[in-house]
């Protein structure tokens, strides 16, 4: 059976051109970037060149890029790094006063859990609500900032519902108030334009495996002058901000993937948005189907819909039996058996969250695949509805 991959938001295949670029760095140019001999310098050169490519994409300087292993690590470093550095350096917080951090209520679990950990360790956290489309209101950010606020973290685009946040406006407010602004751009990096200057971004997270690069590489952009405390201590790699022997092959791949995304961004964005809109139109013809997320400010590759009377795990497994790979925010498919907090935050009822389906498109997606999906999906929905006590 031919398989169709509609889960590019979870991870992407490594582009063949990327793989080719990485190849020499496993067995041939395998040196350690910290070594002074030619093997080491070869690796160091590749690292420096990669850093330049990554910096260029977002209008940053190379020395503002810290390579990490993943977006999870970058987000942990951003939140904990700023929090701990402030506690150490800012005399306002040497007494009993707690520093304050603002996040949105639809962040990825690695931001949520980092914030939770900080809350347990004496920081104050505010979670901003979002509107029915999943957008943070910049005015809410402004109102949430207090004298003790040190950091605002709002994602650039949602991994679940594809909503693009108004980060330019949020960045501007943070700049005016003298508060650091971090954005998790894991889902938008390489897909839509980012300019850290224009958008007043102080810290930014990206992940290689979401953009046709290999797993095991991520980055944290940290604006010059922004103080962070490292989490990994050791040999002093990455300017002392992230010790550990640098994963050169993965980073070379990350850079190549970035070059390709940059060159193809415009054309690919238009192509995917067309396919996305076609898919949305087709899915909404199914009775009861409802689009989640913002119809306008939306990633070109994300579709998220709910069906009221069926459960998501059953839906995605039926799709899988037809060779189609999607994901769901249903509780039954999560380890905690709780429905997606993102979908609840945009006001969905639990049963609507249970019946949610996320389809994320990518480089290999074709019009034919969309056609096949739109033929199969109504049949499955119909079958599950027949089995369900709810007939909405």
């Amino acid at each position, binding site marked *: 059976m031919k398989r169709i991959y509609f889960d590019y938001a979870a991870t992407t295949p490594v582009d063949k051109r990327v793989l080719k670029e990485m190849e020499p760095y496993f067995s041939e140019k395998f040196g350690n970037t910290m070594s002074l001999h030619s093997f080491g310098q070869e690796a160091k050169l590749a690292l420096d060149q990669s850093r330049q490519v990554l910096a260029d994409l977002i209008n940053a300087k190379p020395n503002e890029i810290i390579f990490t292993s993943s977006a999870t690590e970058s987000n942990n470093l951003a939140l904990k790094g700023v929090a701990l550095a402030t506690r150490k350096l800012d005399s306002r917080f040497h007494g009993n006063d707690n520093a304050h951090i603002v996040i949105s209520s639809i962040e990825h679990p690695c931001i949520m859990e980092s914030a939770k950990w900080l809350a347990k360790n004496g920081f104050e956290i505010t979670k901003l609500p979002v509107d029915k489309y999943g957008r943070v209101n910049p005015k809410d950010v402004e109102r949430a900032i207090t004298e003790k606020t040190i950091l605002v973290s709002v994602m650039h685009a949602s991994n679940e519902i594809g909503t693009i946040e108004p980060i330019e406006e949020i960045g501007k407010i943070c700049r005016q108030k003298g508060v650091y602004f971090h954005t998790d751009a894991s889902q938008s990096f390489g897909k839509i334009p980012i300019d850290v200057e224009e958008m007043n971004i102080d810290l930014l997270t990206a992940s290689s495996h979401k953009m046709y690069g290999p797993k095991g590489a991520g980055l944290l952009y940290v604006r010059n002058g922004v103080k962070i405390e490292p989490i990994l201590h050791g040999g002093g790699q990455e300017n002392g901000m992230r010790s550990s022997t640098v994963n050169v092959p993965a980073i070379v791949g990350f850079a190549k993937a970035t070059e390709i995304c940059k060159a193809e961004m415009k054309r690919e964005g238009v192509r995917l948005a067309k396919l996305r809109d076609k898919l949305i139109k087709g899915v909404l013809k199914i009775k009861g189907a409802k689009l989640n997320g913002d119809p306008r400010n939306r990633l070109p590759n994300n579709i998220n819909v709910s069906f009221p009377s069926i459960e998501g795990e059953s839906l995605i497994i039926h799709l*899988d039996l037809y060779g189609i790979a999607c994901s769901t925010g249903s*509780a*039954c498919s999560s380890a905690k058996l709780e429905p997606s907090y993102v979908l609840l935050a945009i006001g969905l009822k639990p*049963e609507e969250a*249970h019946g949610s389906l996320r389809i994320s498109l990518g480089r290999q997606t074709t019009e034919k695949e969309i056609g096949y999906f739109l033929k199969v999906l109504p049949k499955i929905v119909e079958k599950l509805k027949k089995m369900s006590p*709810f007939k909405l």
Partner: protein
Amino acid sequence: MKKINNTCSTLYTPKVMATFKNPHNYGKIKNASGIGKVGNIVCGDVMWLYIKVAKNKKGQDVIKDIKFETFGCVAAISTSSIITDLVKGKTINEALKVTKDNVIESLGGLPKIKYHCSVLAVDALIEAVYDYFLKTGQKIPADLEKKHKIIKKSKDIIEERYKGWDK
């Protein structure tokens, strides 16, 4: 490395998947003798079991027909189907002896986090029989009354816990 070729093979057994693909006895029974409604939409699983009861030659109550309607995951749909197979044609007394372990065994196993789906199937049957006894004005055996109370209590707890979630 082992090749993965069937859907969900690391999570569900082939029997679960086969049952999920082609479940038996789903739908409604008009004029059912008893209906058991368990689960909670907030948790993501709701199971309704319909039974049609008739007397056999010995005059015992027999589950002549049984159907389910389930909103839930692969495990919930498979356990629903299996319980209908396990008790169809049995006397009510025999049917009430079916346990969650019987359900799990018949499916060749379930992941631990999905055990509650098999409990749901057994509970739905108990509730359907209880409903039948109530409707026909029969005396409810002490054991059944006890089980019903436990099911109802846990249902109330869950409803209390999730009250206001949808506001």
